[in-house]
């Protein structure tokens, strides 16, 4: 038994460490996946402006994040791609009014294989486009708008058999980025990212093709007493934050389309 002693004490130390828990960021932000690149920039800007705070980002489809908050997920802020979801959380008492609009989103046709800037939705039934990626319309607002745009263009029935669905809009962009799908419909805010922009052109789908993507955030019930959450909400109204959002193609509240 004695020769096992170092092993046993290492095991005991490991077991003791198992029950220790890690320290957490002081505000958890659940954000629609179209905000991925914008928030990659906003997070360090906020943490630099307010060094006492740190943010943790959790990205997903708005529908999934809404469902998680509804089931008690410990998020302090919810940035949704569709205003109806934060409103529903306020109505059910899971979030605290006000619901604040932060931008109008747009959808684009994007490809890393073809020059999508020279394409229109009407060309999508052509057989060279074997797979077309959109986000899941059931729970991703960008997917729902993509479906509406395809229906408006009169091609939904023709392309339906060739659709593949991303779990959220960043996943959809990944499907196109890896060319698993030749092209697809993603958020303008993702296509505006320098890394992705260099890989392929995009075609901005007219806003009249789909219902407006009114994007809004809300502080959850859990975040109501969290100063970091409130400070980030204030930060989102600052000119610094608005500049970043503008650069990612969002039409900001109170501003005309550009």
């Amino acid at each position, binding site marked *: 038994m004695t020769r096992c002693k170092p092993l046993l004490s290492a095991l005991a130390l490991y077991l003791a460490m198992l029950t220790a*828990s*890690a320290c957490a960021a002081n505000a958890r932000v659940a954000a629609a996946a179209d905000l*991925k690149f914008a928030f990659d920039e906003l997070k360090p800007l906020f943490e630099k402006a307010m060094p006492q705070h740190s943010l943790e980002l959790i990205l997903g489809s708005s529908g999934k994040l809404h469902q998680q908050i509804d*089931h*008690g997920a410990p998020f302090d802020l919810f940035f949704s791609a569709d205003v109806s979801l934060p409103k529903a959380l306020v109505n059910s008492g899971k979030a605290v009014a006000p619901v604040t609009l932060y931008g109008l989103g747009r959808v684009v046709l994007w490809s890393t294989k073809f020059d999508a800037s020279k394409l229109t939705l009407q060309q999508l039934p052509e057989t060279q486009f074997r797979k077309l990626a959109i986000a899941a319309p059931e729970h991703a607002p960008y997917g729902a708008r993509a479906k509406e745009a395809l229906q408006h263009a009169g091609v939904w029935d023709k392309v339906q058999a060739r659709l593949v669905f991303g*779990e959220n809009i*960043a996943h959809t962009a*990944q499907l196109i980025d890896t060319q698993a799908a030749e092209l697809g419909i993603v958020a303008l805010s993702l296509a505006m990212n320098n890394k992705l922009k260099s890989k392929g052109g995009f075609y901005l789908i007219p806003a009249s093709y789909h219902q407006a993507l009114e994007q809004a955030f809300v502080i959850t019930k859990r975040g109501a007493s969290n100063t970091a959450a409130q400070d980030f909400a204030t930060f989102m109204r600052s000119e610094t934050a608005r500049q970043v959002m503008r650069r990612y193609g969002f039409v900001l509240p109170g501003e005309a389309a550009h």
Partner: protein
Amino acid sequence: MLALSPGAWQAIWLTARLAGLTTLILLLVSAPLAWWLTHSRSRASNLVAALVSLPLVLPPTVIGFYLLLVLGPQGAVGGALERIGLPHLAFSFWGILVGSVIYSLPFAVQPLREAFGSIDPRLLDAAATMRASRIDRFVSVVLPLSRSGILTAVVITFAHTVGEFGVIAMLGGSIAGETRVVSIAIYDLTQAMEYGAAHRLSAILLAFSFLTLLSFYAINQRVMSPIKPR
């Protein structure tokens, strides 16, 4: 290795914690359960055996979905915890620990059942005639003879929990340091198109899994050959 981000290290440590605790809990739970399943001839044992094996055939989404409902604030368990002033378990480390224990249960019970079942009952009878108590018989006869099965249970349970994804994806919410284990972190990284970071974590998981199984088979072959009664 050094190129890993603090977030990646956090995910690795979290995964080690989760797998370690799951293995420890499952050893304590599975040993008496497997012993009972090996020796019980009641009809209830078939029922329990079927329940224990369910995670082998159920999609992780089903387990994750029901656990989310049961452990969440409106669920039977989560709601009861909230009423006595404790947090509910959805989207927490303790929640995915419950999920992992259920999900890996058959992987701990099965090797122990096989080990216990292969013990010659005459050895136990002999020990009993020497007035060894039930516990003494279990510790001095059953456990040493089952060491290969126990090692199998430990290694497979740990490795299976490291490789878990679906249940945690449904139940965890990808919270850093709480529920963002390595498999979830890789999923998030690929979705965010951060392929380099996803590759590094994936390669680590691949190497870990392979080396674990390789050393397991090597040890089992050389050292752990069962002791033959003389």
